[in-house]
């Protein structure tokens, strides 16, 4: 049971599309690459897989189609008949049967060919078997494609059928074409059915929903029925007939008493009588519509008679239900959809009658017993006739009375607050009800912190006592202290001189340490140079003199000795002064024993080479005499004078012969990047 919602059926593809879908899926979802060099079992497996896969897909899809289309025998006879009326049951069944056969055939094909593939001995043979199998399956589908197309059409139409629930409360509207059925349904429900002056405007069933006494009623609008023999009826009329036949509903037979539909009352009455068999066991109401054109009282005699006949028939249905013989107002109603008078009355009476009928039926059926159980109210049976009212003790009653009085008398905090200015102004004293030794203490503010201590930690009832003890102790201690204090030794103080000396010592020590630390840290990278390359002049005799004198020694002799032993750096005229010093000082006897190197250093030529008068000709230069040399020097000076004056670049100024030597600007690096050169 699909809940009578045929919208959920999957789309049925056409034959061609079907084949395309399945084959492309096989192409995509199975492995595609195979070579003839593979093992034969692998080849076989490959092609068998393809065949089986295709068969499975076909099977799935065809089964889906077969299952989703409703089986006419399984659904409600109303729908079965309706579908039969619309689509022809046989044709429908045939189509589905064909699909089923196709499915079985495809299964057989697949089985056969898989069996054959088991014995395929080459790639080519297996492949051709697979091609044959797939081809045959596709042919099967091609043959079945008209059925597929037909089913697709049916599916589309079925999806658009109105969703009528055959079991719920239904009101059916029937009558000749153009009598006002669709207008009526438009009035009472939200349905929007076409209303046109021509006949057969409504070509199929339409459903609307309306409410009555908190229940939902379906209202079904049918196409008009003509008075014809049963066999001659067309599909549209058959729809209405089906609806009438199978739905257990209240029937409203519409009568156009004005005749503006094109049919007079006689014809309509004839129709009524011909289909009255369909009204068995259904609450029937004859509704006279279009009373604005022709009121019921203004009818002619024969018409009136016909109407009364119909009414009698309708009454029979009422009586047939076991209802009371009521007046004719229940079965014959007049209304006008144009002026909307009587419309609601019709609806109400129809709903009422239907409801009563359904309730009666339910009461008679067995199902009601389940419901009846739920309605049972259990009441204990009375044992005897004694009165047993509820018993409340007297004390409780008194207390209750007192409390009631109390509540009125007692003043609430809230009232107090309101008196004193409201919520923002008045702040209640939370300590009002505190129980303290003395009532005056209630509003006391106690400090919580004092001097970095929490007061609460110190609170003690006998704190005074303990404090006394403490102070006593302290007093004792102090006395002891005073006694002990006499033995404070002053010790030996250092004199100012000694302090100075000590400070000096410490300074020297720290200096030494600093120097040592520097030396240590630079030891690895510092070269050890001999003294003659002493740039900072650390090892000068002056310095030595200063240091020695700082220590309190006489440095003169040391300095002299040092100087006499030293080598002059820039050719100082030491020999002369030294010679002088030699005369006066015996300590300098060592001069005689100086090394030959030093003697050479002090020789005449050496001493002279370091300073000469300007024009003196040195042998080896190539001048004839000093005059020539002087002239040459003058010429040289003159030649550069102008250039110098103009501040031009000269021979000695720096010149870079090649600005970009190749060895610097080309070549790859052994390691690293060459982003800069």
């Amino acid at each position, binding site marked *: 049971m699909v809940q009578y919602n045929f919208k959920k059926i999957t789309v049925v593809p056409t034959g061609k599309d079907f084949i395309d879908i399945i084959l492309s899926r096989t192409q995509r979802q199975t492995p595609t690459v195979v070579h003839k060099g593979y093992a034969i079992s692998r080849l076989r497996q490959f092609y068998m897989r393809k065949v089986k896969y295709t068969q499975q897909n076909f099977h799935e899809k065809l089964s889906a189609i077969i299952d989703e289309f409703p089986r006419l025998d399984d659904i409600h006879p109303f729908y079965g008949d309706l579908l039969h009326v619309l689509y022809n049951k046989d044709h429908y069944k045939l189509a589905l049967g064909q699909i089923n056969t196709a499915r079985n055939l495809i299964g057989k094909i697949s089985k056969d060919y898989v069996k054959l593939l088991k014995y395929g001995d080459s790639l080519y043979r297996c492949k051709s078997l697979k091609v044959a199998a797939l081809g045959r399956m596709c042919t099967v589908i091609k043959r079945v494609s008209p059925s597929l197309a037909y089913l697709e059409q049916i599916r589309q139409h079925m999806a658009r059928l109105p969703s009528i629930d055959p079991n719920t409360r239904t009101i059916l509207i029937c009558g000749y074409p153009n009598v006002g059925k669709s207008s009526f349904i438009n009035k009472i429900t939200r349905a929007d059915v076409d209303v046109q002056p021509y006949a057969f405007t409504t070509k199929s069933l339409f459903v609307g929903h309306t409410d009555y006494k908190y229940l939902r009623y379906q209202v079904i609008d049918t196409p008009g029925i003509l008075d014809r023999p049963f066999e001659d009826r067309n599909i549209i009329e058959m729809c209405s007939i089906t609806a009438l036949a199978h739905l257990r509903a209240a029937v409203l037979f519409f009568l156009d008493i004005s005749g503006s539909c094109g049919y007079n009352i006689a014809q309509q009455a004839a129709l009524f009588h011909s289909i009255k068999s369909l009204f068995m066991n259904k609450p029937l109401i004859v509704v006279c519509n279009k009373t604005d054109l022709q009121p019921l009282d203004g009818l002619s005699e024969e018409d009136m008679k016909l109407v009364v006949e119909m009414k009698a028939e309708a009454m029979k249905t009422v009586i047939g239900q076991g209802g009371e013989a009521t007046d004719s107002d229940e079965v014959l109603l007049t209304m006008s959809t144009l002026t909307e008078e009587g419309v609601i009355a019709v609806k109400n009476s129809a709903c009422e009658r239907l409801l009563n009928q359904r309730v009666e039926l339910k009461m008679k059926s067995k199902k009601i017993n389940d419901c009846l159980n739920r309605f049972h109210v259990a009441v204990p049976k009375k044992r005897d006739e004694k009165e047993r009212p509820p018993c409340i003790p007297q004390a409780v009653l008194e207390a209750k009375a007192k409390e009631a009085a109390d509540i009125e008398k007692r003043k609430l905090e809230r009232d107090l607050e309101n008196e004193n200015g409201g919520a923002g102004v008045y702040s209640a004293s939370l300590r009002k009800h505190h129980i303290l*030794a*003395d009532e005056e203490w209630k509003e*006391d503010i106690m400090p919580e912190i004092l001097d970095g201590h929490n007061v609460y930690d110190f*609170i003690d009832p006998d704190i005074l006592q303990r*404090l006394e003890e*403490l102070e006593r102790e302290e007093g004792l201690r102090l006395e002891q202290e005073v006694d002990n204090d006499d033995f404070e030794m002053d010790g030996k103080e250092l004199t100012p001189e000694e302090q100075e*000396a000590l400070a000096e010592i410490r300074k020297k020590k720290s200096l030494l340490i600093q120097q040592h630390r520097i030396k240590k840290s630079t030891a690895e990278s510092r070269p050890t140079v001999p003294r003659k390359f002493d740039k900072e002049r650390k090892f000068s005799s002056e310095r030595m003199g200063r240091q020695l004198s700082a*220590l309190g*020694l006489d440095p003169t002799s040391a300095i002299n000795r040092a100087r006499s032993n030293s080598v002059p750096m820039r050719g100082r005229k030491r020999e002369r*002064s030294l010679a002088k010093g030699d005369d006066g000082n015996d300590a300098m006897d060592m001069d005689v024993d100086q090394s030959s190197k030093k003697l050479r250093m002090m020789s005449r030529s050496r001493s002279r080479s370091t300073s000469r008068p300007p024009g003196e000709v040195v042998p080896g230069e190539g001048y004839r005499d000093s005059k020539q040399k002087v002239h040459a020097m003058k010429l040289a000076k003159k030649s550069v004078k102008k250039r110098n004056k103009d501040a031009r670049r000269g021979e000695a100024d720096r010149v870079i012969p090649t600005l970009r030597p190749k060895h610097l600007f080309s070549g790859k690096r052994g390691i690293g990047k060459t982003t800069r050169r």
Partner: protein
Amino acid sequence: MRLEKCWFCSSTIYPGHGIQFVRNDAKIFRFCRSKCHKNFKMKRNPRKVKWTKAYRRLHGKDMTQDSTFEFERKRNRPERYDRNITENTLKAIKKIEKVRVDREARHHALRMKGKKAKEQREAAKELEQGIHMVKAPAALQEEPSLTLPKIKVKVSHQQAEKNHLMEE
């Protein structure tokens, strides 16, 4: 409102200062400032960190046991308010504090007692041992007092005879 103690350095945490850390076992660590907090996060032991009270107490730098500490005890049950007791308590706190401070000072003095003598002895020894760095032994023999020799002016050998500027 309560003044708490910093877990690391044991100083008081006033309201609005510091950070509290609650561990998964619900133990609360309060810190007076981020220095203590960061040291804690580094997992340093306050007993090994020189400037904390824990270290000082452990190594005997500060007073450990004293009767003045008995007065300050955390009470868990609130006491009923009594004005007299509170008054007395407030007065007592001040006195107790004074006593405590005095005792601390005494403790400190006791600790530092032998320091001066020791320093003097050390200074004398250093002087004796290091005097050769500032005054040559030869000069010392000539003149036994500890006055330092002055630095001489520059010597040029012509005036060598004149420049015996040794001061006595």
